[in-house]
């Protein structure tokens, strides 16, 4: 059966270097099971980390990848608090991935956080589910890495169909909804709300991919 063309796209930051090698090892093995391109958007404070990640990719024999650096205000340079800065960095990186995705002929985008370790048949399973219900998004929930028994509702592992990304940007259009707060915290929540408003079909799942290790520091 023909596999749909998937881009694995992940925002990365030097602060998560503790998990990077284990994750790239996982990516490498998954790519052998499901051939997919890998795009990394580095939003670290400078370009040093890009070179380090290239070294990791070589070590784990990942050839089919691209890495770009996104320069963005952070730490003391930004007026936002640290948590909100993280959300903004991730969202802006997701948007850059979306632009690169749309510029090519990918059929789906697999958002896969770089501190989540998954079985190598995961992408097959998510694609199968997406196709079975013609879902625009398949969100696979997992557990929060630092709070026991707490479900992570972020896009930790999410497969987006092209049609969805053609229509919706990750950047929240602040002010377009009366209840919308001017905050980057809820960017992913607003993304889903827009889909609900448009009556799009998507699914949130648990337990289909097992085990999932959400690596703590």
């Amino acid at each position: 059966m023909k596999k749909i063309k998937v881009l694995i796209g992940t925002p990365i930051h030097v602060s998560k270097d503790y998990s990077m090698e284990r994750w790239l090892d996982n990516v490498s093995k998954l790519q052998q099971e499901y051939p997919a391109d890998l795009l990394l958007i580095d939003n670290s404070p400078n370009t040093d980390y890009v070179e380090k990640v290239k070294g990791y990719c070589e070590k784990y024999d990942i050839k089919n990848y691209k890495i770009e650096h996104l320069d963005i205000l952070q730490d003391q340079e930004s007026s936002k608090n640290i948590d909100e800065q993280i959300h903004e960095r991730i969202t802006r990186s997701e948007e850059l991935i979306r632009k690169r995705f749309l510029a090519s002929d990918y059929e789906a985008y697999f958002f896969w956080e770089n501190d989540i370790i998954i079985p190598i048949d995961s992408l097959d399973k998510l694609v199968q589910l997406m196709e079975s219900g013609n879902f625009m998004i398949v969100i696979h929930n997992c557990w929060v890495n630092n709070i026991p028994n707490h479900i992570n509702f972020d896009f930790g592992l999410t497969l987006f169909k092209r049609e969805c990304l053609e229509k919706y940007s990750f950047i929240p259009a602040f002010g377009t909804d009366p209840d919308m707060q001017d905050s980057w915290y809820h960017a992913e929540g607003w993304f889903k709300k827009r889909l609900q408003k448009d009556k799009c079909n998507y699914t949130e799942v648990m337990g289909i991919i097992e085990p999932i290790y959400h690596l703590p520091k």
Partner: protein
Amino acid sequence: MKILIGTPIHESKDYAMERWLENVAKLQKEYPADFLIIDNTPGTHYVETLRGYCAKYGITNFQIKHLEFDPMMEPDERISRSREEIRQHILENDYDAWFSWESDQIIPTDTLNKLSKVMESGHYMIIHPNSWDRVLPGEPDISFGVCLISREPLKKFGFLLEFGLEPGMRKAWNHGDVWFKKQVLKDGGNYIEVFGLIKPIYHLNK
């Protein structure tokens, strides 16, 4: 897939009953499924009313069981005990899945076709299309209002809550469905919640 539509019924939802049974009749034409009604109204008079409605809407493939509970029993407990009766019926027979469908939710007639197709594609255990709460605007309904549950988790987990088994478990019958899902996940099972696949879903409040 051989599916049982199983629904706890109470007279207090009579306002929706005829519209719902008409919906059941139309859905059964599109997806032939057996239909089990568990009436938990005090006394058996409502069973006769239901039979009349079924005749009116041409539903012939159905069974009604009556469960008599203490009239003061809280609705969530009545519903859980009725669900357990449905579960036993599924296990005694050779159904592949239970379609939990509350008697105040009106759905498209191709719903079961869509849900069973997704369930079969990945051997998923629970498929929960989200509808909206009938009282609170904009709040999703997290109960098993419309939900397809495969036989496998029903073999393992029941709807009679075993209070005290788990630290932090409140002695309350509400959210029994959330508890059921937690048990399934804890056991290595899975569930999927779908938004927008089944539309429209009307959750009747009068």
